[in-house]
């Protein structure tokens, strides 16, 4: 097989020992890369029931099948996996920039980090040389400073660094990993897993070549793909960027506002993509191997946040804008910058601050707890300061750093009713009360509240289905979207480029040309289905049931108060219709457990023991 290195690097932080293991073509063909490799490696390497902060919880990095090649928008993608400290289920997050290609060029497709170091260290992978380096001088440093200091220490500007900030060190449950300055493996708290291991960063430098099976054929295919990547299918991401969603979703009354108290935001205009680009964006740059580029670098030119610099996307803009009732982009940019510096997920952190604001306004937390901050909706100064308090676990920030699920359990007094999370992971930027297909996608998403495992807002917003209706058939839409996204996350192809691809057949032929492993579209689709099912098995093994495929109480009890979706909510009856249909379509029991026949069909028989451990009526 070509392109794949076939190598898995195992590192034990307890004794510093490393070991290289190998995978074969059958493994590659079954699990493709990225998410497939990550889920498979996690389920096989983590003892069942391990606590996320236990040294036995492996922190896994995996690159995509076509990583390090000229396949558009794919060279540098990578995924990170571990048991999540937020959900106690599958933790996974994806990033890009330059780091991913570097790992493959260093000679590895998968990196498995186990154990816990006695003292702070960072891992330095320099092709075959793998070392643990002292990180005492880096502990406490922001992510950006960490990255620059490591480069300086090693004397090489081309070293790529994936690091945690003070948030990960303090086991903030929403902590993330920052690489290449502006890129984050953001969700599910994987930065806290790194911090729990006394590991500050993974630095990589790779100089090996990535060979492909049919270079000339690949060039030929890429000529066409690059043209598409520069065309209308990606213009949204190249021009306004994802913040274009602000006005779109606001007009559809799908904009999570003030902790889901509304779905429309009166101040949307001044936090819109249009406003951002006119006033703040200084450069749009690209990841390694990307012919479309989307990275909107924004700098605040004046005022109290002068100089604040961040890569701005829709989700964090939603979280620190409408979600916190803030209509100023300078405050939003500052909040995102701080999230990147402290190494905490900007989506979850914004949702947490919004939750804190509602707690404060309802009198559930007081000035003493906020350290004197008037944590009211719309107060951008209090919002910015609260981000720091969460990153440092100061005052009520210590409780909020646990994520909204655990914070609500700590604060109590009915705050659980407006804690916006699924399975422990904070909601993202689609008000699903009036997007019923998307609501199902969120409810069943394997990493908790998430739009990125399915993208099922598409049919709702495009109007190909009645978005206000829960009905049979939505299960199939979500299933197909999920399996398709598994392939994007295993190749790994940037989802912003999804519009340039013509489906499984085309992706399969690129896979074949790159790796030399024959692949059909149907085989590829099935690999996606295999990954979805394996993730489900992992989550079942770690204790999830149908009850966890739910939606936050406010989505099911409080109708959208105004706008075109006024009156919408998802009732328990709606959810049951959607879940029953989804499980049945998936070949799962009414309790959401994959049936034996399905496991056999997908070649997952070895995991049948997981389903057998469930009550008989559940697996029948």
């Amino acid at each position, binding site marked *: 097989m070509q392109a794949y290195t076939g190598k898995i690097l195992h590192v034990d932080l307890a004794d510093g020992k490393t070991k290289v293991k190998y995978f074969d073509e059958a493994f590659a063909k079954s699990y493709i890369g990225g998410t497939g490799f990550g889920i498979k490696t996690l389920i096989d390497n983590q003892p069942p029931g391990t606590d996320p902060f236990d040294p036995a919880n492996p922190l896994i990095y995996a690159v995509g099948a076509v990583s*390090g*090649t*000229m396949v558009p928008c794919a*060279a540098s993608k990578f995924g990170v996996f571990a048991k999540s400290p937020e959900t106690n289920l599958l933790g996974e997050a994806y990033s890009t920039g*330059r780091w991913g*290609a570097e790992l493959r*060029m260093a000679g590895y497709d998968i990196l498995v980090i186990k154990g816990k170091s006695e003292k702070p260290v960072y891992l330095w992978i320099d092709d075959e040389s793998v070392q643990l380096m002292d990180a005492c001088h880096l502990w406490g440093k922001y992510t*950006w400073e960490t990255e620059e200091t490591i480069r300086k220490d090693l004397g090489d*500007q081309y070293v790529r660094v994936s690091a945690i900030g003070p948030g990960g060190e303090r086991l903030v449950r929403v902590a993330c990993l920052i690489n290449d*300055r*502006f890129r984050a493996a953001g969700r599910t708290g994987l930065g806290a897993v790194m911090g729990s291991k006394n590991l500050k960063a993974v630095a990589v430098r790779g*100089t*090996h*070549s*990535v*060979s*492909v099976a049919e*270079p000339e054929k690949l*060039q030929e295919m890429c000529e066409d793909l*690059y043209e598409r*990547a*520069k065309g209308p299918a990606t213009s949204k991401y190249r021009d306004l960027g994802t913040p274009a969603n602000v006005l779109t979703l606001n007009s559809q009354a799908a904009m999570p506002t003030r902790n889901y108290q509304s779905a429309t935001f009166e101040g949307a205009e001044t936090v819109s993509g249009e406003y951002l680009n006119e006033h703040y964006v*200084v*450069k*749009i*740059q*690209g*990841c*390694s*191997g*990307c*012919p*479309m*580029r989307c*990275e909107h*670098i924004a*700098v605040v030119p004046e005022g109290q946040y002068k100089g604040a*610099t961040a890569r701005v996307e829709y989700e964090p803009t939603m979280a620190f804008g409408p979600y916190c009732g803030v209509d100023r982009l300078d405050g939003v940019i500052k909040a995102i910058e701080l999230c990147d510096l402290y190494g905490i997920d900007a989506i979850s952190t914004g949702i947490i601050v919004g939750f804190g604001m509602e707690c404060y306004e309802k009198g559930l937390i007081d000035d003493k707890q906020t350290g004197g901050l008037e944590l009211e909706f719309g107060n951008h100064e209090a919002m910015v300061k609260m981000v720091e308090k969460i990153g440092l676990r100061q005052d009520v920030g210590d409780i909020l750093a646990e994520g909204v699920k655990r914070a609500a359990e700590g604060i109590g007094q009915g705050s659980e009713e407006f804690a916006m999370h699924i399975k422990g992971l904070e909601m993202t930027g689609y008000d699903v009360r009036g997007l019923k297909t998307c609501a199902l996608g969120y409810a069943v998403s394997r990493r908790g509240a998430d739009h990125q495992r399915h993208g099922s807002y598409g049919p709702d917003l495009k109007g190909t289905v009645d978005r206000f209706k829960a009905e049979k058939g939505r299960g199939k839409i979500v299933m197909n979207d999920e399996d398709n996204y598994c392939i994007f996350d295993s190749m790994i192809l940037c989802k912003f480029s999804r519009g340039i691809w013509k489906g499984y057949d085309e992706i399969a032929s690129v896979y074949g040309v790159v790796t030399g492993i024959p692949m059909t579209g149907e085989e590829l689709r099935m690999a996606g289905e295999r990954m979805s099912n394996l993730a489900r098995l992992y989550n079942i093994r770690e204790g999830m049931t149908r009850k966890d495929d739910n939606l936050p109480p406010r989505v099911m009890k409080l109708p959208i108060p105004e706008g075109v979706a006024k009156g919408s909510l998802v009732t328990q009856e709606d959810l049951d219709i959607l879940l029953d249909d989804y499980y049945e379509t998936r070949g799962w029991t009414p309790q959401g457990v994959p049936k034996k026949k399905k496991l056999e069909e997908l070649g997952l028989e070895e995991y049948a023991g997981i389903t057998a451990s469930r009550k008989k009526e559940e697996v029948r």
Partner: protein
Amino acid sequence: MVRHKFVSYDPDKCVGCRVCEYVCSLEKEKAFNPTLSRIRTLRIYPNTNASIACRLCEDAPCVIACPRKALEQSKENGVILVDDDKCDGCGWCIEACDFGTITLMPDRKTVVICDLCEGEPKCVKWCPEEALELSSKDIIAQKARIDAVQKLTKAAAEAKT
């Protein structure tokens, strides 16, 4: 020399996507490897991006520095020709180059320098942002003059209204 063409980049257009490095290494080394590319990108955070290849200097310092006369500048098109038999990878030329555009091949122990792909550089063809151009110093200067004059004219027109 002033009319010899080389691959120049526009700092405003370059986004640091490294596509030039991918296609160069594929063209020249039949595999993807930015460290073997004849054109090298650099990003200085937050947002400075560059892509630099041999600039075909007049009286090229690399040629002068070579102790083995392994480098020679083509009279025809100005590219630096490397004699693989004479080059032993000592790296003096790399130190002499002000732009960091000479690459040592770790396996072969010889250096490689942009040869313009027989007049049709692959990097220029593939650059998604049209940030790379095969151009000569006098043409680059011409363009700068045109830009400057257009800006002046526009400013003058705006001042009148």
